[in-house]
């Protein structure tokens, strides 16, 4: 069964600005009260990179990572599931999922994954 995206963004109750990750004070108006908002719909790829010099903790040959914007305006980083031959382009639609992105201390760590063509 597909897992729910466990990304929680915070919408300022006063000015409506969306925040992800969390801030204690609104980045626009300094207000301290927020409504929790979940990402909705597909996501648009804003930028991406494919990294070949990986940090400790990864055994893959490369990682493809991007930043997307969801239909309700939330922006988040995610792992892109596309091999080297796939021609990624900024602006393309991505299908989001919540899946294991790494293993730490023997446990799966879940995060946002993105598949082109959503």
């Amino acid at each position, binding site marked *: 069964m597909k897992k729910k995206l466990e990304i929680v963004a915070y919408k300022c109750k006063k000015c409506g600005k969306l925040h992800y990750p969390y801030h204690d004070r609104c980045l626009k108006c300094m207000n301290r009260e927020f409504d929790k908002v979940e990402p909705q719909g597909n996501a648009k790829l804003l*930028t991406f990179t494919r*990294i070949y010099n990986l940090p400790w903790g*990864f055994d893959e040959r490369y990682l493809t*990572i991007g930043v997307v914007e969801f239909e309700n305006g939330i922006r988040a980083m995610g*792992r892109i599931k596309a091999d080297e031959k796939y021609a990624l382009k900024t602006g393309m639609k991505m299908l989001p999922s919540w899946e294991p*992105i790494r293993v730490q201390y023997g446990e799966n760590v879940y995060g946002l994954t993105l598949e082109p063509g959503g």
Partner: protein
Amino acid sequence: MRDVAIIGAGIIPFGRRDEDTLMDMLAYASLKALDDAGLGDKSVDAVYVGNMGGGIIQHQTAIASSLVDRLNLLPAAAETIENGPASGGSAFKNGLLAVASGYYDFVLVVGGEKMREVTGWRATDFVATMTHPQAEYPYGITLPGLAGMFTRLYMEKYGVTREMLVSVALKNQEMGTLNPFAHVEMAISKEGILDDPASIVNNPTVADPLHLYDACPVSDGAAAVVLCPLDMAKKLNKVPVQIVGFGQATDNQTLQEREDPTDLKAVTLAAQKAFDMAKLKPADIDVAELHDAFTILEIAESEHIGFFKKGEGGKAALAGKTRLGGQIPINMSGGLKARGHPVGGTGVAQIVDIVFQLRHELPKDRQVKNAQKGLTINFGGFGNNVLVFILRRVEQ
């Protein structure tokens, strides 16, 4: 507030220094700066040490306390300043403010890092610990990765090309071959890293669209300066270098939360503060050391600091305007790209290089003729904590 001057500067060769501990390097650079200042066996009032990774890489904390003991600078006040890759700049700022306030007269500032005692895998992870712990780090993002995403946006928005990026790498590596303190002393050619089909082997992708020669090396190294009030400096033999401008600014930690991720707001704001304080404008600067951890950053910073209009920095680099003898010579030390980037040491090393320039002590092939005013940008995180300093030669 008192006017403050640099009266001593020292740097040790950057690179892979297997024979030295972190403390060895900090001590060597400190002694060179103290000797350069002509302080002899005298002590200083305070010591500020810029270091990012001692606690993680060397499993060593309270580094400044250890350094004053090793150098017998006791009972000087001592603090270690950790502010990511801007640790050196932050340590220098603390020294500057301490002397300017009138609380201390003689202050030693040293920055250093020993990164090569762990594998590249570990060093990359150590540097990535400055990313957001929930929204970025778990994905395996690295600083080259953030730079790659930034570069893609900058290329799309401003038409920066790989040839422009390569022109920065060529200039800085050429300057590195002339700098005895540089980590990378290897000349490269455009053919070898861009034009020739073999360049895909020589210059592989590190973080698309950035390649190996777009990135700085992982370095060991340290640098140090001695500060005192300008009126005291004028009584000493060295040409004093006054700190006439300083600015620091911060920005959102994650690129995704910046309204325009290509806008390095903290650079612009820190520069405005520094230029306002110095009562100078970008055109008054004779030489600059910018934080070129990646070639794109030299181009973007040269625009955000005001040397060139937005979108013109890459063209200026390609046209040779940032070379020795050009409109504004940038990174005549080789920059982070060739001098190297021991993260906590870089901010101080930049100051040392500008001091050498303003004292007119460098050989002709690196010396900006009659340089009077210099500028540094020390860029922390991915542009979320930036320090800008403006220095001026004081004629005796």
